[in-house]
């Protein structure tokens, strides 16, 4: 290996994506913009919900419940309807997420000391939001029940319902993110995903582009050795990946105000290992592909499943066991644990290393394989 040739190759490779102002901008701009947009867009809170109301009772207590629902912060508009047809239409067209139907004996039952039913109809197409909204609604019902027991239960002279012991207090504390700000969860994850996407795209294209444009043959007749070519493709991608990763970490901490509690050095170490393992995958792909189009679509076909099984969008423990085992081979899965851990959970050294060594193993495997494949292709 000749350091001079290696430097020349690296500079050439870097220039191929940084020379042209358009590609310079598309390399740096979109990831940062997406980090900003998505970190505000992705939220699992449910807000501004429209609710349909079919009140057949119009009694004091149905008015009370209605008023409480209208006043709660997750509801935007409460739309009174006259009949089941109108209610069905509002749900069918997706105009409302939820509909309440109060039967005509609602107030009567409560005054008589009996339970009163409320039909809650939710849009199953948005079952996720529906479940969260239902949770908010049960809170409202619980609070109302407490007041009801107090106001009606004692009047009826039923001590079992009224007086006596209140239920145990449940004191909830959310560690690491006391107000459950979703952005704090999503930003570290996006840093990992966007850095991976960039590194994969840059390396995936590297050899395929040269082959499509015919410059690869020129490289072959030049004095560089195959190993130098591999290293010359790895280093620039590593530089792009880590620099962009760091830019996004800085944006996350300073612009998006996500707390950073762990060790920056450990995160940097893991980021480098992570990018190495991704670069290995990208190089393998690139050496197999004949055209840039194949490389880009290949990158894509790898990215999507890897993101889905990484635990970013859905918790890992929801996956079947065999898939959790497959996910162990995904560098993103390990890196996500580290990046989320060092941002929020002040992850101790031992925990970081426990997830960093699989990254190192994956990196070693993918880079070795990439090297073998490229070498074979060169002969």
């Amino acid at each position, binding site marked *: 290996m000749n350091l001079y040739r290696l430097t020349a190759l690296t500079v050439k490779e870097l220039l191929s*994506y940084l020379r042209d102002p*358009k*590609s310079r901008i598309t390399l740096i701009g*979109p990831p940062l913009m*997406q980090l900003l*947009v998505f970190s*505000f867009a992705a*939220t*699992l809170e449910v807000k*501004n919900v429209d609710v349909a109301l079919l009140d057949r009772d119009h009694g004091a207590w149905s008015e009370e419940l209605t008023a409480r629902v209208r006043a709660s912060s997750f509801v*935007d508009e409460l739309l009174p309807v006259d009949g089941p047809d109108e209610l069905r239409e509002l*749900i*069918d*067209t997706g105009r409302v997420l939820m509909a309440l139907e109060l039967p005509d004996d609602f107030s009567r*039952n*409560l*005054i008589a000391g009996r*339970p*009163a039913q*409320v039909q*809650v109809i*939710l*849009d*199953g*197409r*948005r*079952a996720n939001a*529906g479940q969260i909204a*239902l949770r908010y609604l*049960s809170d409202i*019902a*619980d609070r109302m029940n407490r007041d*009801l027991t107090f106001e009606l*239960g004692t009047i009826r002279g039923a001590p079992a319902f009224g007086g*006596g012991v209140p239920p*145990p*207090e*449940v004191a909830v504390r*959310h*560690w*690491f993110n006391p107000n459950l700000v*979703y952005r704090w*969860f999503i930003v570290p994850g996006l840093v990992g995903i966007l850095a991976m996407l960039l590194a994969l*795209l840059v390396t995936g294209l590297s050899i395929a582009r040269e082959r499509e444009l015919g410059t690869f043959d020129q490289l072959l007749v030049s004095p560089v050795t195959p190993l130098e070519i591999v290293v010359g493709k790895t280093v620039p991608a590593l530089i792009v990946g880590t620099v962009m990763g760091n830019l996004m970490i800085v944006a996350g901490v300073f612009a998006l105000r996500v707390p950073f509690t762990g060790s920056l050095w450990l995160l940097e170490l893991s980021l480098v290992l992570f990018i190495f393992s991704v670069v290995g995958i990208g190089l393998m792909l690139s050496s197999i592909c004949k055209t840039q189009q*194949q490389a*880009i679509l*290949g990158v*894509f076909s790898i990215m999507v*499943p890897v993101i*889905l099984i990484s635990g970013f969008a*859905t*918790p890992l*423990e*929801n*996956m*079947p066991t065999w898939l959790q085992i497959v996910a162990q081979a995904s560098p993103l899965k390990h890196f996500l*644990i580290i990046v989320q*851990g060092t*941002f929020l959970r002040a992850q101790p050294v031992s*925990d970081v290393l426990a997830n960093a060594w699989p990254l190192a193993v994956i990196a070693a495997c993918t880079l070795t394989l990439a090297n073998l494949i490229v070498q074979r292709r060169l002969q």
Partner: protein
Amino acid sequence: MKLRRLLALVRKESLQIVRDPSSILIAFVLPTILLFLFAYAVSLDVQDVRLGVVLENDGAAARELAAEFAATRYFDVLPVRDRREVEGLVVAQKLRAVVVIPQDFDRRLAAGSRPAVQVLTDGSQPNTASFIAGYAEGVVATWFESRKRERAAIGPTATGPTVALQPRFWFNPEVESRRFLVPGSIAIVMTTIGTLLTALVMAREWERGTMEALFSTPSSILEILLGKLLPYFGLGMLATLGCGLLAVTVFDVPLRGSWGALLALSAAFLVPALGQGLLISALARNQFIAAQVAVFSGFLPAFLLSGFLFEIESMPPLIRALTYLIPARYFVTGLQTVFAAGDVWAQLGPNMLAMLAVGAGFFAITARKTRKSLDR
């Protein structure tokens, strides 16, 4: 416009699609994997949450409550001896949350003063954390209620004046996330084919200079563009058909609406999707840039801003306004309706019109940009 020239162009492009393994990969292999993952692997339904229970008290009531937690179907309960062990386990994500039943629990309960149960969650996973908090409160309240009833020796039916919610999820009674994730993922597949693939193919023609070569042939611009777009339109429709069949037959997601409505919806979506791909390629004229832009402006928004995973109504107003420009937004809603609810034209119609309008916008901008740059 001459039909023969158009057909020749369509045939050329179709052959190119069929001969390139990568377009088959993106149109048929990736969708299958995606649908499979959404149907069986990835699920938003919370289950098997690892919950630690610290029992600091050996009393009967405390043990009863702990058993109540172990009996729920959502939790995987692990007994923890000491609350000092807990934090380390949560940091290491061995546990998602811990319930602490304190030492004085039984004593306070017997004395009639209000005992406290502590719930400590891993807030770095906000979704799971808020679920656990809400569910834990429910477990405690239910347990307490049934105990009170036992004590007072009243029947389980007599509950006093309470508001009883009877939730029913229409279209999805079992509340399975795949019922909406599988239809939604068709939008992701179609965005990939319509926008990413088209942007790449056209950018390659620009990059290699073959676009100008095509322009110098007797074919008109319209013929060239149609000749390019029609095959991808066909590929997209085939992919929808494939995804729909897979969803219904293999992944057990019923199609309540009609195939006609599903195909009409997909056809309407392909207009803005292809338009966006065309616009990107005309602006970028370079495959790397086109890919970057297509992923960041087409694919990721289809995933994150379309209402597929995150509720649009909960987003900040500015971003909510932005989603109106994202065709996938209308498509995801439409797909979920066709699959789960049926042919609700009152909702599908406006969605299709909106997609066509966005598509018309993309084509109009492309037309202006293309004419300008050819003059240059």
